[in-house]
C-alpha cells in the first residue's frame, strides 16, 4: 500500500486546523464550516478506502495464507533521536483495530462536522461566536485521534494522547465566557493529566525493561520469551530470590515490574476512559457544545483507554493480575455509573454516565478475555461494542443536541411529550435507546450479548453483575426516553414557537447513524477483528441461552420504565420517597466530587499547601528580605559621612593617610 493515502489521512485534518485557525477570521462562517466538513469528508473517503483495502484486498502484507490478519507498518520515520537506543518514531500502523478505529473516528467526526453546521447557530440562523475556531479545534481533535490510533509505538501514542487531551480541553472550554465551562475544562485537563502521569511512568518502565517502544515488538514477538525477561516466578521464595538476583526480573513492592507497568498504563487509560475513581471529569465535560460531547466524550476519545488496553493486550495476557484489575475496575464503574444515571435530570449527564457505564462494559470485556475461553471472545466483543457504542451513543448525543437546540435547556423537566413535535429526532432517539438497551436486531444487542457471553465464560458472578448493569442500562435509557418524549403533553413556553425538527444538516447525520445502528450488528465482526488476527466465527459460538436471558432482562427493564414513566403518575415520586437516602446519594453521584473537593481543598491545600506557603512567605522570602534590610540599614548609617563639606573630606583623608603611614612605619620597624 502506498504511503500517500495514510499521510493524507493525517495531514488533511492538521492542515485544516492550521488553515482554519490562522485564516478562519478572514473568511465567512459558512465557508469555514464547509471547508472543515469537506476536509473531513475527504479524510472519511480515504480512511474507508484504507480500511477496505486492509480488510478485503487480501494482500500478503495484510493477511497471511492461514487467514490471519497481520500488523502492517506503512511507514515509520525517526522523529527524535536522543541516543542510539532511545529513538522516537512517528508512523502509521495498520492492523484490525486501528483500521476499525479509522472508520469509527472518521464517520463520527464527519457526522459531527456536518451536524455542527446546523447546531452552532441560533434559531435565526446566526452563527455562534467563534464558529471558525470551533471547526479548527474539531480538525485538531480529528488529527490527534487519528494519530493516536495509528501509532506505531507507545511514545507516539502518548504524544497524540496528550494532544487529544489538549483538544478536549479546548473544546470543553469553547464557551470560555461561562465560568462553569472554564472550570469543567480545567477539571478535565487536570484529572486526565494526573492519570497520564501514571501512563508515562508505565511507558518508561515498560520500555526500560523491554528496550523498545514499538507495538509490533512489544506484542508480536514470541510472548513467552519476553515474559521471562521481566517476570518473577512468585511461586516459591527460591524462585523469587533467583529472579531478583539475576537482575533481569526485578520486583517492586511484591509485584513484578511488568505488572506495575501494565497497571500504570491502565491508570492512564482509566483517566481518559473515565473509570472510577477518575471519572469525575466526564459529566462536567458536558459543558462543551453537544456535538463535541458526541464526538469526544462519547464516541472516540473516551474509548482511547479501551483501545490502549486492547493494543497492549498480548502483554496484558502475560499478567493475569493486571487483567483482573481491569475487570474489577470496569465492573465497579459500570454499576456505579448505571445507578447514578437513573437519577440525573440533565439529559446530557444521563448520557455521560451511560457512556461511563458502557465503556466500563468494554473494559470488563477485555478483562475477562482469555484465549482459552472461546478463543478470546472478550477482546472481539470489546472492540465490537466499541464500534457499535460509538455509533449509537453519537446518535443519542446528537439527538440530545437537537432537543437542546429546540428547547434551549438541558433539563428533561422542560421537554416532556416531544414525540409529535420532533418526529425525526424521536424515531432516531428511540433506535439509539433500543440499541443501547440491547434489543434484537439493533447493534447493541449483538455486542453486549457477546460481552455477557465472554463474562459468563470467565465467571458466573461477573456475568450476573453485568446483566444487572445491562438491566439498569435499559431502564435508565427508557426512563430518559419516556420523560423526554411522553410523560405529559408538551407546554410551549410563552414567547417561544413550538419545537420542531432541525434543518437537514442536523437531521441527516441522525438518520445515517440510526441506519448504521440498525445494521451494524450484522457485520461479521469476528472475521475482521480478533485478538490474534485469526478469523473467528462468532455465530458458531453464539449462545442462544445467554442471548435470550439478556433479551428478557432488557425487555423487563423497558417494561418497568414504561410502567413508571410513560404517562405522568406518582410512582416515580413514591419510589424516590421510599429510598430517600439511596436516591439522594445517587443524585449527588455518591458525593465523589465532594470527596475530591475535600481531599484537594481541605487536605492537600489545607495541610500541605498552607504550611508550604507559610514557609515560602516567611522563611524563604524572609531571608531574602533581611539581606535587603541589612544592606539598607547599613547604607543609611554611613550616609552622613558624605556631608558635602570638602574640608571634612580632607580631614578624613589626612587622618587616613597618617594612619596608613604610621602602620607602614610600624611594619617596617
Amino acid at each position, binding site marked *: 500500500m502506498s504511503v500517500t493515502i495514510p499521510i493524507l489521512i493525517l495531514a488533511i485534518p492538521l492542515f485544516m486546523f492550521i488553515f482554519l485557525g490562522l485564516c478562519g477570521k478572514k473568511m465567512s462562517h459558512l465557508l469555514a464550516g464547509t471547508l472543515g466538513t469537506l476536509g473531513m469528508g475527504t479524510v472519511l473517503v480515504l480512511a474507508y478506502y484504507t480500511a477496505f483495502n486492509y480488510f478485503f484486498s487480501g494482500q500478503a502484507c495484510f493477511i497471511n495464507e492461514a487467514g490471519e490478519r497481520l500488523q502492517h507498518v506503512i511507514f515509520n520515520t525517526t522523529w527524535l533521536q536522543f541516543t542510539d537506543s532511545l529513538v522516537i518514531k512517528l508512523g502509521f500502523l495498520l492492523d484490525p483495530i486501528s483500521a476499525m478505529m479509522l472508520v469509527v473516528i472518521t464517520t463520527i467526526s464527519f457526522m459531527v462536522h456536518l451536524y455542527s453546521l446546523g447546531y452552532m447557530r441560533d434559531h435565526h440562523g446566526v452563527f455562534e461566536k467563534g464558529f471558525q475556531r470551533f471547526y479548527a479545534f474539531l480538525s485538531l481533535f480529528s488529527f490527534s485521534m487519528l494519530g493516536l490510533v495509528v501509532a506505531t509505538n507507545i511514545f507516539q501514542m502518548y504524544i497524540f494522547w496528550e494532544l487529544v487531551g489538549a483538544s478536549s480541553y479546548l473544546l470543553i472550554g469553547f464557551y470560555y465566557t461561562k465560568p462553569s465551562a472554564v472550570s469543567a475544562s480545567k477539571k478535565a485537563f487536570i484529572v486526565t493529566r494526573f492519570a497520564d502521569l501514571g501512563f508515562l511512568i508505565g511507558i518508561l518502565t515498560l520500555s526500560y525493561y523491554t528496550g523498545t517502544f514499538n507495538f509490533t515488538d512489544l506484542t508480536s514477538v514470541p510472548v513467552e520469551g519476553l515474559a521471562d525477561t521481566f517476570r518473577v516466578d512468585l511461586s516459591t521464595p527460591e524462585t523469587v530470590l533467583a529472579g531478583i538476583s539475576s537482575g533481569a526480573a526485578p520486583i517492586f513492592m511484591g509485584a513484578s515490574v511488568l505488572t506495575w507497568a501494565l497497571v500504570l498504563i491502565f491508570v492512564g487509560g482509566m483517566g481518559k476512559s473515565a473509570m472510577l475513581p477518575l471519572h469525575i471529569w466526564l459529566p462536567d465535560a458536558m459543558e462543551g457544545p453537544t456535538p463535541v460531547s458526541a464526538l469526544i466524550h462519547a464516541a472516540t476519545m473516551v474509548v482511547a483507554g479501551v483501545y490502549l488496553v486492547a493494543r497492549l493486550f498480548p502483554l496484558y495476557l502475560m499478567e493475569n493480575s493486571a487483567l483482573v484489575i481491569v475487570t474489577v475496575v470496569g465492573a465497579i464503574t459500570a454499576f456505579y455509573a448505571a445507578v447514578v444515571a437513573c437519577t440525573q435530570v440533565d439529559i446530557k449527564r444521563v448520557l455521560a454516565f451511560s457512556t461511563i457505564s458502557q465503556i466500563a462494559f468494554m473494559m470488563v470485556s477485555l478483562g475477562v478475555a482469555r484465549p482459552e475461553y472461546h478463543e478470546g471472545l472478550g477482546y472481539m466483543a470489546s472492540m465490537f461494542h466499541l464500534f457499535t457504542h460509538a455509533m449509537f451513543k453519537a446518535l443519542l448525543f446528537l439527538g440530545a443536541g437537537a432537543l437542546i437546540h429546540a428547547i434551549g435547556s438541558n433539563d428533561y423537566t422542560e421537554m416532556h411529550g416531544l414525540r409529535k413535535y420532533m418526529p425525526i429526532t424521536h424515531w432516531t432517539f428511540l433506535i439509539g435507546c433500543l440499541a443501547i438497551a440491547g434489543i434484537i436486531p439493533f447493534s447493541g444487542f449483538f455486542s453486549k450479548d457477546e460481552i455477557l457471553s465472554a463474562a459468563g465464560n470467565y465467571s458466573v458472578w461477573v456475568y450476573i453483575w453485568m446483566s444487572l448493569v445491562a438491566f439498569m442500562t435499559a431502564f435508565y435509557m427508557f426512563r430518559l426516553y419516556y420523560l423526554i418524549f411522553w410523560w405529559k403533553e408538551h407546554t410551549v413556553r410563552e414567547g417561544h414557537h413550538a419545537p420542531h425538527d432541525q434543518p437537514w444538516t442536523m437531521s441527516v447525520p441522525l438518520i445515517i447513524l440510526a441506519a448504521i445502528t440498525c445494521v451494524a450488528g450484522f457485520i461479521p465482526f469476528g472475521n475482521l477483528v480478533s485478538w490474534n488476527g485469526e478469523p473467528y466465527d462468532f455465530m458458531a459460538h453464539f449462545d442462544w441461552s445467554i442471548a435470550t436471558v439478556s433479551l428478557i432482562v432488557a425487555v423487563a427493564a423497558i417494561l418497568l420504565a414504561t410502567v413508571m414513566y410513560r404517562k405522568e403518575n406518582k410512582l416515580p415520586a413514591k419510589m424516590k420517597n421510599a429510598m430517600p437516602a439511596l436516591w439522594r446519594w445517587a443524585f449527588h453521584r455518591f458525593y465523589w466530587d465532594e470527596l475530591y473537593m475535600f481531599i484537594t481543598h481541605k487536605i492537600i491545600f489545607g495541610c500541605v499547601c498552607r504550611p508550604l506557603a507559610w514557609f515560602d512567605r516567611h522563611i524563604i522570602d524572609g531571608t531574602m528580605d533581611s539581606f535587603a534590610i541589612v544592606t539598607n540599614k547599613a547604607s543609611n548609617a554611613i*550616609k*552622613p559621612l*558624605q*556631608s*558635602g*563639606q*570638602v*574640608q571634612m573630606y*580632607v580631614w578624613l583623608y589626612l587622618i587616613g593617610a597618617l594612619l596608613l603611614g604610621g602602620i607602614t612605619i610600624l611594619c617596617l620597624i
Partner: protein
Amino acid sequence: MFCCGLYGFLTRRNMIAMLVSLELMLNAVDMNFVIFNRFLFPGAMEGMMFTLFAIGIAAAETALAIAIIINIFRSVHNIDVRELNQMKF
C-alpha cells in the same frame, strides 16, 4: 611650610585662600624635592626635573582651579566652602 599650607587649607573658608594654601603645600613639596636631591644624591638630577614639571603643572592647575571658582561664584554668588554642600548625599 607644608604644615602652614595644610593648616590654611583646613581652616580657611574662602576658596581663593584655600587655593593659596594649596600652592603653599605644593611649593613645600617642590622645595623638598630640590633639597633632598641636592644633599642626598648630588650626582642625580631627577629631583630637579620633577620640580620643574611640578611647577609647570601647578600653573595649569591653578588656572583650572581659578576657572572653577569663578564659575561657582557666577552661579551661587558665594565662595565660602562651608556653604557649598550641594554634593552631599
